[in-house]
């Protein structure tokens, strides 16, 4: 039976430092990736009493806390948005980022049982946690949209750019996570480091809108964007809540890829749902409404891409020794 078909030949050789990602092989194993994601969903849903409620609870509780602390007490700017909306947008994305980073970091060690016994492309393990984490984010997104409508903030057409930002978030979490995952094999302290890091990183990413950084700093303001998550979250707020975009303008922005000055004074018309009578609600943005934060996002790209490449490299180096070390 084996002779009649053309069977692939597997070559086993000592590993080299840098191996090609072997995307073709990953593609061949796509079903396994699917089953891993499917397993994560099922298990998560079954194991906990409240299931996905936890996914919602975390950003919601944080949003309440942040609103009270940073808005009411510290009187920080929420960039013209209702502060719960402002914080919820950032925190829901942050939750996805932090959860993914944490699970990717522990993925190699956590799957030791599997990895020391059976071969499959090792990248599937961290990759599947990136994907299954999205489910939680989408649920949080539903809550977020409800919250926005409550505050009469309508998701604009620019929402179609959200997947791009999600992809960037995933890439950042994956890059940093892969590095930690590989490091975790040798030093289990990484397990302690990651929660610590994510909480500090969170404060550096979700609180300060770009508009609050003094304009007189000129180009230096974009140093803020060296933290890619700051730019991505800014972008999230922009594309979810700040701007109404016409399809024409959107196409132009996407095609040019340049920071387009799309800012106009906003007047968003919403039908008030509460009493059913159409009313005009005025939603004023800040004096100067924020620009599309592409430049800020671009400032974070070197980190994201660099970390992804380095994380992949380090991961690839460690994965072959993994069975011998653990």
């Amino acid at each position, binding site marked *: 039976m084996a*002779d009649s078909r053309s069977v692939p030949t597997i070559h086993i050789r000592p590993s080299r430092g840098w191996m090609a990602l072997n995307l073709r092989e990953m593609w061949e194993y796509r079903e*396994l990736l699917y089953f891993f994601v499917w397993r994560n969903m099922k298990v998560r849903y079954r194991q906990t009493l409240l299931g996905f409620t936890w996914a919602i609870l975390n950003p919601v509780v944080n949003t309440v806390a942040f609103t009270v602390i940073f808005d009411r007490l510290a009187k920080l700017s929420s960039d013209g948005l209702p502060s719960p909306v402002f914080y919820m947008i950032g925190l829901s994305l942050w939750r996805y980022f932090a959860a993914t980073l944490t699970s990717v970091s522990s993925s190699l060690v956590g799957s030791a049982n599997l990895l020391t016994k059976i*071969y499959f492309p090792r990248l599937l393990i961290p990759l599947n946690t990136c994907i299954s984490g999205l489910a939680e984010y989408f649920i949080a997104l539903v809550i977020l949209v409800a919250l926005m409508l409550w505050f009469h903030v309508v998701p604009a057409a620019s929402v179609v750019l959200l997947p791009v930002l999600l992809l960037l978030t995933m890439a950042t979490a994956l890059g940093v996570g892969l590095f930690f995952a590989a490091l975790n094999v040798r030093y289990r302290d990484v397990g302690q480091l990651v929660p610590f890091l994510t909480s500090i990183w969170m404060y550096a990413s979700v609180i300060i809108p770009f508009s609050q950084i003094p304009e007189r700093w000129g180009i230096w303001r974009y140093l803020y964007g060296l933290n890619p998550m700051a730019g991505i979250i800014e972008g999230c707020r922009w594309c979810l809540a700040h701007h109404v975009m016409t399809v024409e303008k959107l196409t132009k922005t996407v095609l040019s890829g340049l920071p387009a000055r799309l800012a106009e004074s906003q007047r968003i018309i919403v039908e008030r749902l509460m009493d059913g009578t159409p009313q005009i609600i005025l939603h004023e943005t800040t004096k100067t409404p924020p620009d599309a934060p592409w430049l800020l996002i671009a400032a974070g790209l070197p980190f994201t891409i660099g970390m992804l490449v380095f994380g992949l490299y380090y991961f690839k180096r460690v994965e072959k020794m993994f069975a011998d070390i653990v």
Partner: protein
Amino acid sequence: MGNDIAIRIEGLGKRYRLGQTVDLKRTFRETLMDLPRFFGHKAARALKDAARRTLSAARVQELQSAVRDHRTADPETPPGTFWALRDINLEVEHGEVVGIIGRNGAGKSTLLKILSRVTDPTTGHAEIRGRVASLLEVGTGFNPELTGRENIYLNGSIMGMKKAEIDSRFDEIVAFAEVEKFLDTPVKRYSSGMSVRLAFAVAAHLEPEIQIIDEVLAVGDAAFQKKCLGKMQDVAKGGRTVLFVSHNMAMIENICDRCVLLREGRVVKEGNVSDVVSHYLKQMSGSSVPLDQRTDRKGNGRVRILDIQFQDESGQTQTVLRSGRPMTVQVRYDSEAISPQAKMHIAIGVYSVRENPVFAVTNDLTGQIGSHWPRQGHVQCHLPNLLLMPGTYSVNVLVSVNDVLADWIMGAARFDVEGADFYGTGQLPPSTHGDLLMPHSWKIE
């Protein structure tokens, strides 16, 4: 690569750093856990501390070979490393069933790990035509929260099956595992027997081009073991390429076309099955290194075990004993000057080839020879009736003085037991039913 070659291995080698082997921790823990149960002695506790700092006994052999390599100042073997596999060359044709035998630590599992791509070789290369699947890790990736049905898909997928393949074999798998009624029950509610059956069923229905079978027969109840054995034979005889690793020489001889004997990471003999098996058994019974020259021992050395012999009822030294007959184990020792009042303890543990403890005897249990040992002498332990099934057994010996470990050797000696008409009916229980022959009788009242 010719069309009829399924596996070609050239110059394959694997170098480990000492203390870095995969199953070091496992064997380590097992060793520690077995000790108190086996010898029930304070010496075990003292040994734990010593053992924690050193290597597990099972790895001492590799340590020895590492030391040997150092002596020859091999530039390829930096200090602190050893070769678990060295310069393996092997070709396996399509449809061939090749047995791989050797003692524990000979490199069998390392070879399988490389071929199943779990770990990388250090040198050489291998070419494999077709999908490889191993029956050595049944149940990998089982998730207790998922139902039987879900686990079949997950596990099958992890082992390399496509969803369509699983779909088409699903009913067969379920029927083989005998879990029809519990398909939608989470596996955490399964008995251990059920989950093992399910895991084996998935693995057995993989149908890859090349099958690696490690001894998994220790799983499940007797009836299921028989079924597994049958399935393995089907696989082996179904024209598939099979690498078969086992300690069960009868099965090797029954199934394999060719046999490879590994020792200390090298192929020492290859070819005709019965030749290789008999070579292996010879190697097993007469340890390659005389006992008094072995360095893989623990303890302070106040007493040194020099030699172990097995004698039959007529006092003849034998390596093959007979079931149901008397046996005497004679341990020759040498010691420093020890106070005659010192509390002497000797324990002999007997293990089956699968390294399961079978029984242990100690002088504490019978309250004999607890002191006044001469400086040199022979300690004899007499077993009036050897209640063992036919097979090969290994012996661990431990001596302590005032509860301080003096000498302890794992695998100090081996002996074979030959079947005899134990029950006077010409019958013996099947070998899967344990290692003991229990005298018994029946009646109806």
